[in-house]
């Protein structure tokens, strides 16, 4: 692991999203001794998703800590450590389990700076495996980035490519603000271009990952490849789609979205979290206010259905947005 970075600099072999997580953390641990990791089975085992593989070997047990199954203690201890000079990176194995320590995410971490009048700083990262599509059922498949969006005071990262994983991990760990970092389970095995050395992707900067003139698609994490596939299909019908990868929800890069809308006048959001209370709603409400004059058509949201995640593939496909659904939504708007 030690020289992965150097290797990659002159070796543009693709890196997997999974390896990018460990690489991103390792880079920061190398440059800053105050970065420490804690979580269940993250040590010698390398994490149940192998997203911390190699860290225990390289940095040892004093920097990579296995914990009991105690989500409140994990995140609460991370908070206490962050308040006292460390930069903890806490893993919550599945994002569904954020519910088990929600008090820390909702009431403690995002509020303590404000309610003490700025006396304390909480530079921590809570990393978690997010999203569905793997047949893990109702309690291990949710896209919960919208939970975090309900709470002012949390930054929210949700990268879609290995390079962004590394770059946003750097930004998240260096941030003096708390960051919830959503790693998408469905993307772990995907490979992408390796990140350059010292790669940092500032939080709050969306990426226009495909330029197009007709309709703007705004997507996040695993929905970015879905949107890209839909765009390919739509191109065959001469519908030219622009795709914005939001990359983070807070800060929310509404400027990039409104600028794209200025070019296309049509907007579809593609989000995995449920329609009710989903992040697309907040974005659409900004657009329906500030971008109203730009719109030539209704705004459409392709979102998770408002049901729990079912187990069977045939059912899960009904619930999570698919390329077909995105294509249909865009087509209907283009025709408006």
């Amino acid at each position, binding site marked *: 692991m030690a020289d992965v970075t150097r290797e990659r600099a002159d070796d543009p072999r693709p890196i997997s999203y999974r390896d990018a997580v460990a690489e991103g953390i390792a880079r920061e641990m190398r440059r800053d001794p105050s970065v420490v990791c804690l979580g269940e089975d993250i040590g010698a*085992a390398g994490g149940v998703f192998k997203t911390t593989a190699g860290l225990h070997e390289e940095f040892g047990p004093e920097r990579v800590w296995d914990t009991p199954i*105690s989500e409140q203690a994990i995140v609460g201890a991370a908070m206490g450590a962050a308040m006292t000079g460390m930069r903890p990176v806490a893993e919550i194995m599945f994002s569904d389990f954020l519910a*088990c320590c929600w008090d820390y995410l909702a009431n403690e971490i995002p509020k303590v700076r404000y309610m003490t009048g700025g006396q304390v700083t909480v530079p921590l990262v809570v990393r978690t495996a997010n999203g569905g599509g793997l047949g893990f*059922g109702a*309690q*291990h498949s949710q896209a919960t980035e919208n939970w975090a969006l309900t709470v002012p005071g949390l930054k929210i990262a949700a990268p879609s490519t290995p390079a962004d994983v590394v770059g946003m991990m750097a930004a998240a760990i260096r941030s003096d603000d708390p960051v919830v970092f959503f790693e998408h389970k469905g993307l772990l095995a995907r490979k992408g271009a390796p990140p350059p050395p010292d790669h940092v992707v500032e939080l709050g900067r969306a990426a226009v990952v495909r330029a197009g003139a007709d309709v703007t698609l705004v997507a996040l994490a695993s929905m970015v490849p879905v949107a890209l596939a839909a765009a390919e299909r739509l191109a065959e019908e001469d519908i030219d789609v622009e795709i914005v990868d939001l990359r983070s929800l807070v800060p929310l890069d509404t400027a990039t979205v409104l600028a794209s809308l200025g070019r296309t006048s049509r907007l579809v959001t593609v989000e995995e979290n449920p329609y009710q209370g989903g992040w697309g709603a907040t974005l659409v409400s900004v657009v329906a206010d500030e971008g109203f004059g730009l719109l030539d058509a209704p705004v459409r949201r392709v979102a998770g259905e408002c049901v729990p995640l079912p*187990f069977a593939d045939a*059912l899960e496909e*009904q619930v999570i947005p698919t390329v077909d659904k995105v294509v249909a939504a865009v087509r209907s708007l283009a025709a408006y």
Partner: protein
Amino acid sequence: MDSAELLALYERMVLIRRTEKAAHDLFLQGLVKGTTHLAAGHEAIAVGASAALRDDDYVFATYRGHHHAMARGATPEECLAELMSRATGLCRAKGGSMHLTKASVNMLGSYAIVGAHLPMAVGAAWSARLRGTGQLAVAFFGDGATNIGAFHEALNLAAVWKLPVLFVCENNLYMEYTPIADVTAVSRPAADRAPAYGIPGEVVDGNDVVRVQEAVARLARRARAGDGPAVLEAETYRHFGHSRTDPATYRPAEEVERWLKHDPLDIARGRLVEDGVPEETVTAADERARTVVQEAVEAAKSAPPPDPREAFTDVWADGGAAWRT
């Protein structure tokens, strides 16, 4: 326990073991999706406890719950069909391996958030007391669950309200890949905590179906008599890794070997032999189980997939999923 009963329990354990083996094989054939947490090795806990319960008692289990579903009467076919995403599955293919449930026999579910079902079991016991039914509730959980907050809150509330609920810990020495001893402040993660709630905490050989049955029967009598909850820590070991992706290389070979020799099926078989039950009788039980599971696999294989519209049923009690009017 007389040998007829023991034979029946043995057969049930074999049935579970074979069903899990089938699940494992079907997984490798690509017919089971998602994940599974096999309970092979834990059978005596489910079957022994079940034998000590009334038919209408409530059972709550974890994602590692195949054995509990079957101990309470779910058929291998229902379980395998669920794992294979068939419309005939226990949960109509909406739950999967981690959520096996058979409410008609008060097996009230398998929960995949560690510890979450302990308060539910407390609530079921509270309900039984309010309704005056004499029912008991049992929560089965892993050693790892003893370090989560819900464990603490559940045990305290159960103790304060003196509810008829049993907390049965299946201590298999590991959470996922981490030894429980590395992350727990006491050596008996469940039993050593019982005094913190002023309730009995016992340890039992969880691989000996007779001992489990006896312990649960005793604690159940006590709870039904109004003397409140208890903790039972059953020592056991899982034969497979934590879940399907885990080869369990973190476990010392010597430890694995020792535990495989302490197999609940062998122990029960040994007792049957001791009781003078003829070899053929035991083999016949094995054979019956083999046949049932074989037929279950075939039946599940040929069962239809769920109707895609099922994705939009069962959110609400009216059967639907409408969130707007």
